[in-house]
């Protein structure tokens, strides 16, 4: 056989081999996809089954022959599902905004300032990471009931999460990667300009306070706010997304605090739903669909940001 024929035969073989392996890949992917999607699909179909469609039968009947939206109506009438959503959104947004703010505030000095106790504070904060959340929940619960008196109110689910150590850690990393000269330049940047800027920004602050030397503190704040935060925006986004997903899916603490239907967040409300429709598989299915579908749509729309956010935290 000539060299050319051999090359042709080789490339054909290679092509077939690649075709075979690609097909195998697709088969594996489809299998995994089926395993991943199957519960959702089944729940979706079950939620539309009418009273004459059996939930379990031999052979199993997946598609409802008697489709109805009655299950959704039943669940909607019994429990304030829209309220669950509203509460979850309120809580998640509040926490994301405040947590990112406070964590960013705390991360800056830990990354870029020299002061006494910096290492001690940082490593102590890091050490609290190993403390199981369930441990702190017992005294936090007692505090909530006896001292703060915010049992069964949404603030009870916001306050403990105003700061998380992980976020401080991540943002500190982000700040650390900002070159030092940028910050020093900001610090040197004319005290005269600062005074003008301050007057505009903090009109309510009396002159004496500024004159008493608070300029330096406000100066750092200005550096932090107008220079550094924009630079570490990707990290802020990462932290925001991680916190959002974490809070959206948070169940343990909210389940301890929120008892009335109107106060419940989505995850707690779902469990209440399951309790209210105990032997009603169709109703539970409808409830699950109602709570999961919007999140899935939200995720599909913002896929890239989500994935980048959730996995971007892990640097090689």
């Amino acid at each position, binding site marked *: 056989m000539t060299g050319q024929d051999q090359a042709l035969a080789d490339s054909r073989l290679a092509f077939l081999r690649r075709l075979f392996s*690609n097909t195998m*890949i*697709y088969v*594996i*992917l489809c299998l995994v*996809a089926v395993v*991943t999607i199957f*519960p*959702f699909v089944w*729940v979706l179909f*079950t939620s539309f089954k009418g009273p004459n469609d059996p939930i*379990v*039968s*031999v052979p*199993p009947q997946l598609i409802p022959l008697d489709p109805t939206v009655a299950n959704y109506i039943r669940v909607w009438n019994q429990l304030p599902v829209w309220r669950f959503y509203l509460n979850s959104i309120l809580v998640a947004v509040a926490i994301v905004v405040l947590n990112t703010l*406070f964590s960013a*505030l*705390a991360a800056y*000095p830990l990354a870029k*300032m020299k002061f006494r106790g910096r290492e001690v*504070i940082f490593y102590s904060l890091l050490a*609290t*990471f*190993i*403390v*199981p959340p*369930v*441990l*702190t929940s*017992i*005294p*936090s*619960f*007692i505090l909530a*009931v006896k001292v703060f008196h915010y049992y069964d109110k949404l603030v009870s689910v916001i*306050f*403990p999460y105003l*700061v998380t150590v992980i976020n401080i850690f991540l943002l500190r990393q982000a700040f650390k990667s900002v070159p030092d000269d940028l910050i020093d330049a900001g610090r040197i940047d004319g005290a005269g300009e600062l005074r003008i800027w301050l007057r505009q920004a903090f009109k309510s602050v009396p002159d004496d306070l500024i004159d008493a*030397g*608070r*300029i330096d*503190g406000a100066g*750092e704040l200005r550096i932090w706010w107008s220079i550094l935060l924009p630079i570490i925006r990707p990290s802020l986004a990462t932290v925001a997304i991680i916190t959002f997903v974490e809070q959206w*899916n948070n*169940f*343990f603490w909210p389940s301890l605090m929120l008892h009335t239907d109107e106060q419940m967040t989505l*995850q707690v409300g779902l469990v209440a739903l*399951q309790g209210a429709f105990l032997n009603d*598989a169709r109703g539970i299915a409808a409830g*699950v669909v109602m*709570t*999961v579908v919007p999140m*899935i749509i939200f*995720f599909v729309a913002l*896929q890239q940001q989500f*994935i980048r956010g*959730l996995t971007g935290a*892990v*640097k*090689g």
Partner: protein
Amino acid sequence: MSKKLTPYLFLTPALLVIAVFVLYPIGAVVYYSFTEYNIMTPPEWVGLRNYQQLFRDDIFWQAMKHSFTYLLVTPILICLSILLAIVVNRKLPGIQIFRALFFIPVVSGSIAVGIAWRLMWDTNGIINGILLSLGALEEPIQWLAEPAYTLPIAMALTTWLGLGYYMMIFLAGLQNIPEELYDAAEIDGCNAWQKHWYVSIPGLRPQITFVAVISSLAALQVFNEIFTLTGGLGGILNSGVTMVFYLWRKAFRLNQAGMASAIAMVLLMITLAFSIFNMRFLERGTEEQ
């Protein structure tokens, strides 16, 4: 003077919150663990009695056993996720759709998924339906009422939930491995499997470490899956009771905050030991590299 105060001012909100919601609770739990406290009446000092009772408590040891058994999820998850990431790490048409698909369980939340699984594995659920139709079963099995099946089903659920998430992490890691390493391996005569063993896996070490730490700490402290699958009961014969579940039951169902605090202290010791172990492992790994 203010110059010195600035860092502390920045830190104040964070330190305040941590002090109230983390530091104070740690101290409080230490104290409560030596008391009998039902939250309604003031705590009553009992010394070491909670710890002594715990030591003799069969269910506590059972719970610890279950928590440690749950750790098996971690290596399984790591292997499956890496495999999946390798499969998904190619430019084939439609691959993005598959990646997104695998991620859906992560965004759905463990509660919704747990409830859906509970329906599936119910005596009148689809799992029995399929098995019956295939002839693999004669009578439906009360899956969630069988002590032997409770924990495995929960572990399967955790694995299923984590697969998409860890796959993405490993995928990002794989894409950071320079092509040259693979080319070098190919020149050395490696086939596909060997390439992955000698290049991909070592290259993924940081991600593996991260996943190992996160996943194992999560496995030790699993709660949501157990709660939804057993309806808050912990399974027949406490077959699904893990340490955190037992803690929760003691504190918030049986009103025994003192005993629960003692369990919490034990749990703290365990997570501390685990973290130290993980960090040593980390150091040794980076040294070898």
